[in-house]
């Protein structure tokens, strides 16, 4: 494939990592949601680009899903939930932004190192893409474990999943990508609805996960 394709894909992937860092940086829920929307948008762009360069039309579906569902529906829904449940707006973190950032750096470095062991037999695009995707995945996980609010964790999970889609689309000619992305969208929908359901059934007065599992299996 030509140089420009490569650079473009590369750029978008890198952008995705960058935005993951931005998410890691946020400490207001709304802002986080917006940044996530951006994240999804970038993903959509990247997927679309892949669809073009791999001339794999079915990938456009994935792109569309990313655009409509992740970049618009989900953030809006979460926005609603936050309003409906009156969740306090700031994000409670376990570790400070600084250390989270450092950890993120470490993770990115780690994913690079791991990927560099891959012989360049695999085509460079895949290799670089995978490195970025892995970083995104790890950053998403990091976000999940450093955020206390459910919403924050959901966002973390979703960006993790974006990383997956990035990898999947980056993998040239991979079948089932669409199905997988759909399946994942359903999964996310489940999570969001789950949060919502719990509220409606008034089981938990807040979706703060800690309160949600204050009863942890067995009483001591």
């Amino acid at each position, binding site marked *: 494939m030509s140089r420009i394709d490569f650079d473009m894909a590369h750029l978008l992937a890198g952008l995705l990592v960058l935005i993951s860092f931005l998410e890691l940086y946020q400490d207001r829920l709304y802002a986080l949601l917006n940044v996530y929307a951006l994240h999804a948008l970038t993903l959509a762009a990247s997927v679309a680009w892949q669809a073009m360069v791999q001339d794999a039309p079915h990938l456009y579906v994935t792109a569309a899903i990313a655009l409509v569902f992740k970049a618009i529906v989900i953030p809006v829904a979460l926005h609603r939930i936050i309003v409906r449940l009156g969740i306090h707006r700031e994000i409670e973190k376990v570790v400070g932004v600084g250390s989270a950032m450092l950890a993120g750096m470490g993770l990115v470095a780690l994913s690079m190192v*791991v*990927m560099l*062991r*891959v*012989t360049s*037999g*695999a*085509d460079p695009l*895949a290799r670089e893409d*995978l490195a970025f*995707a*892995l970083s995104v*995945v790890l950053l998403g*996980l990091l976000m*999940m474990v450093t955020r206390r609010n459910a919403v924050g*964790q959901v966002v973390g*999970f979703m960006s*993790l*999943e974006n*990383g*997956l889609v990035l*990898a*999947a689309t980056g*993998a*040239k*000619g*991979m*079948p*089932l990508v669409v*199905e*997988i992305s759909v*399946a*994942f969208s359903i*999964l996310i929908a*489940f*999570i969001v609805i*789950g949060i919502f359901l*719990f509220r409606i*059934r008034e*089981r938990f007065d807040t979706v703060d996960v800690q309160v*949600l*599992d204050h*009863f942890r*299996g*067995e009483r001591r």
Partner: protein
Amino acid sequence: MTFDALTGVLLIPAVAAALLAALPGYRLTARLNVAATALTLVCALSLFVRRPQPGAYLIVDDLNATFIMLTTFVGFSTSVFSLSYIGHELETGRLTLPFVRFYHAMYQVLMFAMNLALVANNIGLMWVAIELATLTTVLMVGIYRTHEALEAAWKYFILGSVGIALALFGTILVYMAARPVVGEGLDAMVWTVLVRRAGEFDPALLDLAFVFLLLGYGTKVGLAPLHAWLPDAHAEGPTPISAVLSGLLLNVALYALLRFKMLLAANAGALAPGPLMVTLGLISLVFAAFMLYRRRDIKRLFAYSSIEHMGIITFAFGMGGPLANFAGLLHMTMHSLAKSAIFFAVGHVAQVKGTQRIADMGGLTETHPTLAWGLVLGVLAIAGLPPLGIFMSEFLVVSSTFARAPALAIVLVFGLLVGLAGLFLRLNSIAFGEPRGPSAKAQASYIPMFAHLTLVLAAGIYMPPALVAWFQNVAGLLG
């Protein structure tokens, strides 16, 4: 397409699920549920006779035939058990009719998903199937709608989703590794092709893939430290589901792991998957063994013992070699049977005692001899005491390991001993001593429980040569 046993194994549960979702009432649907599982079992049996050619999506080979056999059988006996169990739940009003309908439908979906995961010849399809199985079980775990149940379901859901995500990433990596060799498109995900060409794949990618698959599917297997969802899911869901979870779903996830282990084994450059599995296995074993001591909830107790045994099985497969693999397969089969039998007993015990707190039950052998001795027998089985089947597998694992890696064997033996002590510490207060709690007559269905136990007992003493040859063949496949 012509209807063959393979499609039957998949189609029957799917159709049944649709039917059960549509039909009202309890009596009919419950029996329909049994009938469906019975039919599936028949189809699975016929797989031994005539086996369809592997296609791009589906395959039946020696390895998964064993699993299918086990799954359909335990699925069947569990449906028989749930017949009486759910009936009791309806009487006590813990479940209402709509939920029962939902439950039956989900049960069939779960069966479908597991069978699909087992027969999938496509790693992507396998992944989808396992995700489906997870989601259905999540819904079933939460079915009681109690605070605890929902919380357990939620925990299971979140951890499971992360696991799924990791597994998917691993799957993608496998594809990436395969693509340059096999070429783009479907072939690069078809299991049979992969394993044939695995030697030429890029080892580093395979390593990375395996790490993710190990963690991803390992979460489903319930290996420590990825186990967190397992005890609560077992404890809070309806007991038939606990039985299916322990007896089947864990195996299915393990099956996926094994597939990829074979893939790595086929590649010279890749790191040996053995050490990783051995490590995780031992961690799970020892960890779960210690966790048994402080358990107060009877179902959680046995959930942790499932973790322990999954650890042993993973360890055995990790050690590899004909003996250890054979032992691993045997142990897995025996554990599925014994553990589901235990959950059958536990379900009725919890029903007659009206609680799951161990402290509120006692002297069960006085009040409910049949039930209690069934439970004791099951516990003896999973504690690896003769003449029951697990003794044989543990004998093979330990003895074969000690000659190869003494240090590991010591840890293994230590874990086994600690686990046994913990298990009996609890069993003593359940089955023996002065009777406690209500002693109402149990309207229980003993057939499934004792059927399983009989099989376990028989296997401990005599195994039919056909089965042995089968297992040995599979053990050979696993390398």
